[in-house]
């Protein structure tokens, strides 16, 4: 599950900055994000609305329309090739392989008037020239645990969970090394969600595929991923192993988020929460974007800090002045301050 930390990453993003046009104004959706995903690894990307997590993920497949968005800084390297400046036709050639993606709402990505089998076959033909397409479609359906008869069905005849399985089969048709799953179960019921997540875990194991799971649901990411990136307002603000980030979080935002996600009441019957509002990507904040909501904000927070490694932990780093000034902190400390 951990992947080989020394192997060449499938995806390496460094200092990425992406802005897009909205109503004539440039909005920076991703301000500074770095990310590395190694073969076979399950990585989680956590963030709330406006954190830039989907824009970041879509940039790994060149899915942000170039007419309305642009990469201002940083680089994206996929399987050793720098794709930062790729144009639409170059993306067309590599899309789906080595990186494929599934989405929250599978129905939007399926052709409503084409049978499921043909849609999977198209993906197979694009990536496996000369393959026995029928056999491969049947194999893919078996992989995602759908009966072969589904090949003759239309998308609207399937349940939400089945559609998501079809989308996974289409993605697997490209034999990806990395599958990006952007809120893959948000539209599904909890029991269906559990089935899809179990399927994804099994497929990763069997095919040796890496996964980038993007979600606002910390429980989901925590139960499926070994390494975690936390994004807030366009910045990756903390990353490390699941055990470090989710059990010994360092950034005040990550701590608050974890406490909020538990939906627990404190001693006076109040729900634990983070004050203030999730920042709108269009407003420009000087320094750390979490400062207005942060219980431990200091004067230094007027500038954005660099990453600080947490002592005695492997590859757990955080962008926070408070943590940098107080290297050994306990969860209780910030808890008490809030």
């Amino acid at each position: 599950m951990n992947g080989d930390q020394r192997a060449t990453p499938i995806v390496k993003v460094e200092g990425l900055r992406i802005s897009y046009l909205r109503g004539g104004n440039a909005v920076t959706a991703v301000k500074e994000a770095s990310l590395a995903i190694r073969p076979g690894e399950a990585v989680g990307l956590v963030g709330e609305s406006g954190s830039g997590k989907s824009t970041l993920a879509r940039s790994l497949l060149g899915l942000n329309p170039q007419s309305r968005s642009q990469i201002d800084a940083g680089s994206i390297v996929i399987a050793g090739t720098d794709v930062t400046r790729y144009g639409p036709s170059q993306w067309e050639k590599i899309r789906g392989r080595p990186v494929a993606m599934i989405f929250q709402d599978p129905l939007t990505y399926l052709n409503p008037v084409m049978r499921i089998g043909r849609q999977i076959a198209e993906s197979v033909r694009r990536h496996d020239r000369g393959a026995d397409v029928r056999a491969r479609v049947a194999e893919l359906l078996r992989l995602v645990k759908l009966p072969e008869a589904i090949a003759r069905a239309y998308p609207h005849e399937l349940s939400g969970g089945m559609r998501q399985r079809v989308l996974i089969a289409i993605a697997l048709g490209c034999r990806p090394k990395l599958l990006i799953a952007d809120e893959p179960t948000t539209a599904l019921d909890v029991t269906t969600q559990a089935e899809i997540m179990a399927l994804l875990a099994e497929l990763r194991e069997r095919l040796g595929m890496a996964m980038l799971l993007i979600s606002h649901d910390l429980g989901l990411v925590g139960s499926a991923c070994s390494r975690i990136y936390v994004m807030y307002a366009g910045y990756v603000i903390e990353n490390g192993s699941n055990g470090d980030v989710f059990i010994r979080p360092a950034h005040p935002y990550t701590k608050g988020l974890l406490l909020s996600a538990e939906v627990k009441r404190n001693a006076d019957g109040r729900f634990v929460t983070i004050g203030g509002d999730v920042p709108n990507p269009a407003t420009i904040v000087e320094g750390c974007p979490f400062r207005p909501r942060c219980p431990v904000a200091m004067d230094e927070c007027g500038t954005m800090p660099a990453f600080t490694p947490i002592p005695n932990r492997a590859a757990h780093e955080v962008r926070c002045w408070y943590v940098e000034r107080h290297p050994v902190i306990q969860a209780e400390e910030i808890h008490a301050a809030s």
Partner: protein
Amino acid sequence: MPQAEVPLLELRGVVKTFRNAAGTPVHAVKDISLTVGRGEIIALVGESGSGKSTLGRIALGLIRPDKGEIRLNGRPLTELSPQAFRDARIAMQPIFQDATASLNPRRTVRELMRQAFGRSGRGSDAGIAALLDSVGLRPGSEYLPRLPHELSGGQRQRLAIARALAIEPQLIIADEPLSGADVSIRGQVLNLLLDIKDARNVAYLMITHDIAVARAFADRVLVMMQGEIVEEGPSGEVLSNPRHDYTRRLIAAVPVLARA
């Protein structure tokens, strides 16, 4: 019967069957009875297709049941004239999942709130601003000229809550009020709902798929599956010690962080 024993809302033997596009009947609600007491917090938990939203809409009088009775403060709503029904129903107000869709995009905050205050005559700018203040839109007067799309998601949900409060309802029926909200905002919304309950003694019927929310927020939990209530009881008991197999499966399916 003494007045104190009349429940705020009572559904008796409610049945609703829809027909889908193919004409096959879909039994959304099969003979359900439930009561909501004054100031009580009830969570109606279930998955999509369980009929929980249909039941909420029946309670609000937005869908007419095929069979059964709805009593509000002991008065059977189904037997009232249209005008008397509209007047009685305002004691129940909805909060919807999608705050954006629940606000007319062409109306300013002032217009939306004036509309909510309606004939009560309290829809002055000062009255509106005071109510907005109380739901955490501070200072309320600054929000008056804004349009819904100029607010953040959290602010829109607060506005929808303020609107529901304008005519001082006794019961708020909230259909997935948190699923559109960011994780870090959810606690704020729940705290606001608790404050409102403390200040005005409103009751809540919260329709949710989120077991953690039901457990922490509600006094009593009803678990709904395929149009039927399969388990019912105090929230702590039902969700820590579920008796029905479906409730157990629901709880087991929720992904949990392995927290030390």
